[in-house]
């Protein structure tokens, strides 16, 4: 594998050197399917690894436009994690163009494959490619963010906002949700330029590639797996998403929760109770996951998945809420134990 990795690194660096607008995009897909079943569900066929070193399967996705012109994009499977729920697909298109094709591809999996959203803390983890350099030595070349609720306003695109330290500090202070960041991180022999998107991809643009690949195969995917673990272990228990501020101080803020969840495509949400607390039931038709969503205090959304609710389905809800209220901490709630005294003294 190491030999092939080096071959892949050399190949991609050469491609980037020839094209000033190069994008080699790694799409992170969460799926309960095994590697072979995953490839089968997406209609992937075995390929000769000479086209893209390391790739074992590939799929062409074709979309017809309004004028009946055919457009095509290829996604290659990179078999880095054989025994994991995380799968990496690779494309050579600009990500903004490839995204539509990616969604079309994932539809083939009938809800068994979802892009893994790269939230605020995961993007932060991508800033340092080499521990020898400080966090703030990475330059942010382009940052797209938008305000979290209850603030209002549109997306803000910052070109060359400066070093990563200041950029992330400003985001935190202004309570903004990061959508995309293009960065240049110093590495041992130069630098690496890459883009991280909340949608669920990391795109290599230019420079030294090996440190970025090391990050993708190491820290980033480890943190992704850790962040989804509470959802894997939930099994009927409540998962508490706790936001840093009391975002539900007003009853009107429930509309934000409702808005975040009701805009999920292929999902149905019905409010059973909205005053004084919030209770809604949600069915995710993508994979059949069923949830009850509660807001019972000022900072927390509590989600209970019915039997069989998948981690990807949980992640979908989590991401939709994080896009509106910023990133929450995730915790499985333990069963409480009360005494009669607690009940009679009003503490239950």
């Amino acid at each position, binding site marked *: 594998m190491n030999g092939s990795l080096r071959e892949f690194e050399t190949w991609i660096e050469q491609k980037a050197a020839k094209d000033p607008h190069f994008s080699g995009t790694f799409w992170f897909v969460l799926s309960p399917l095994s590697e072979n079943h995953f490839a089968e569900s997406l209609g992937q066929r075995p390929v000769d690894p000479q086209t893209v070193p390391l790739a074992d399967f590939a799929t062409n996705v074709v979309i017809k436009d309004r004028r009946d012109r055919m457009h095509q994009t290829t996604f290659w499977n990179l078999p880095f994690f054989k025994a994991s729920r995380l799968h990496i697909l690779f494309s050579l298109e600009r990500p903004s163009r490839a995204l539509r094709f990616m969604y079309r591809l994932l539809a083939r999996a009938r809800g068994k494959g979802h892009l893994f959203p790269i939230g605020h803390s995961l993007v932060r983890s991508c800033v340092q490619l080499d521990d020898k350099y400080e966090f703030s030595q990475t330059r942010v070349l382009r940052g797209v963010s938008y305000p979290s609720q209850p603030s209002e306003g549109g997306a803000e695109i910052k070109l060359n906002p400066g070093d990563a330290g200041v950029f992330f500090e400003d985001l935190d202070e202004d309570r903004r949700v990061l959508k995309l960041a293009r960065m240049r991180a110093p590495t041992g022999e130069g630098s690496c330029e890459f883009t991280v998107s909340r949608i669920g991809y990391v795109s290599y643009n230019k420079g030294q590639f090996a440190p970025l690949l090391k990050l993708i195969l190491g820290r980033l995917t480890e943190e992704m797996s850790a962040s989804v673990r509470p959802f894997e272990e939930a099994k009927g228990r409540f998962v508490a998403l706790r936001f840093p501020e009391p975002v539900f101080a007003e009853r009107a803020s429930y509309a934000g929760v409702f808005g975040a969840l009701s805009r999920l*495509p292929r999902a149905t949400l019905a409010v059973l109770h909205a005053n004084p607390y919030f209770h809604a039931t949600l*069915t995710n038709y993508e994979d*059949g996951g069923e949830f009850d969503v509660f807001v019972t205090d000022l900072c927390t959304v509590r989600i209970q998945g019915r039997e069989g609710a998948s981690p990807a389905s949980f992640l979908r809800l989590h991401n939709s809420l994080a896009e509106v209220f910023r990133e929450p901490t995730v915790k499985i709630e333990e069963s409480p134990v009360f005494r009669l005294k607690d009940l009679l003294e009003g503490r239950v």
Partner: protein
Amino acid sequence: MALSAGIEDRIQKLFEEKHKEYAAHDRTLSALAAFRFILEYVDEIKQETIFWDFRPRVCSPGSESNPRTPDGLIVQRPSHSFVLELKTSWNKGDVTQVTSYGKAECYMQANGTLTSFSENHCILLGYQNVPGDSNLEALFDEWEKQKQHASLVVFRYSFESAATGDCIFFSRVPFARNGTCPSSHFGRAINSARGFPVTAANFSRVGSKFHKSNDQVIDSYAAVIWWTAYARHYLTEEQQTEMAVGGRLLTPLQIPLNQIDKVPVLPDVDVPLTPSDVRKALEFLRQAGLVTLKARERVYEVKLRQNVRLPASAAAIGAFQQDIAVKIINRWATYSVTKPLTKRPVGAKRTKSRRSRDPGPTLPFPQPL
């Protein structure tokens, strides 16, 4: 087409009434959840409780074929039992209903065997809106006239906002003739003069276990729950894919009338919808224009989709306009006024038309006049 102000007002009024009823029903389910929570999570009460059932059937020996269905039954050691009934507000029929619970001597187990109530038996009757003294007097007059062995305890349950969070508050009604509970830990809590709250954060842990109370579901609530939680379970694999890909069915979901009794079993639900509730839900959705009854084929046809559109003539309502529950009720109110169903309800007897009337045996010769 613009509707006249009068019609719009009627739609609005109907919507508000129905939505209010929907919310009140949910509060009742929250109160049941609060009871279930304290039975499971308050240590002393958990220890003394032998079992609870939120779908009990109670009766007297000899009347097993017609059991009563209160909202809950709690049996505790050494010899305490409680029958629970929750109401929104006073109804004339309450006296008869509650006294019939008092007369019941035993409960039916899942296998149909009868078990007598414990020595210290109590009927717990909860109201969101406490009845006036005259109604309570009438209730206790009748109760005492029947010389019931059980005690009758009337309590109030209400939503309140407290420092510890939003909660549902239970308090025994301070009416002079009101009974007291047997002295188990649970009984002591109900008897407590100060009452006790259960926060939403706590009872919500078991809140999703109740889709209805044992003997009642409001049609609007049944319709919303059926649409969001049950409908998915009727889909074929192909239809599941249609929903997963496009969020709507390309081929409508068909439920034959003779299959309505087969209600999908949802995991983790203590009190699920029954066949009659599903019928009620489908009729409500039919009036809302989301379900069609194909009488000849004897099927209900459901146009399931992730989102529900409002008719152009629907009334504008306040918050959560995009909520499926609000939309379903709004559609129901709109069509109830503008396009009320005229066809006979399902199950009603077909009156024989002249054409279909049986002509009797045909005779080979003309009948003599």
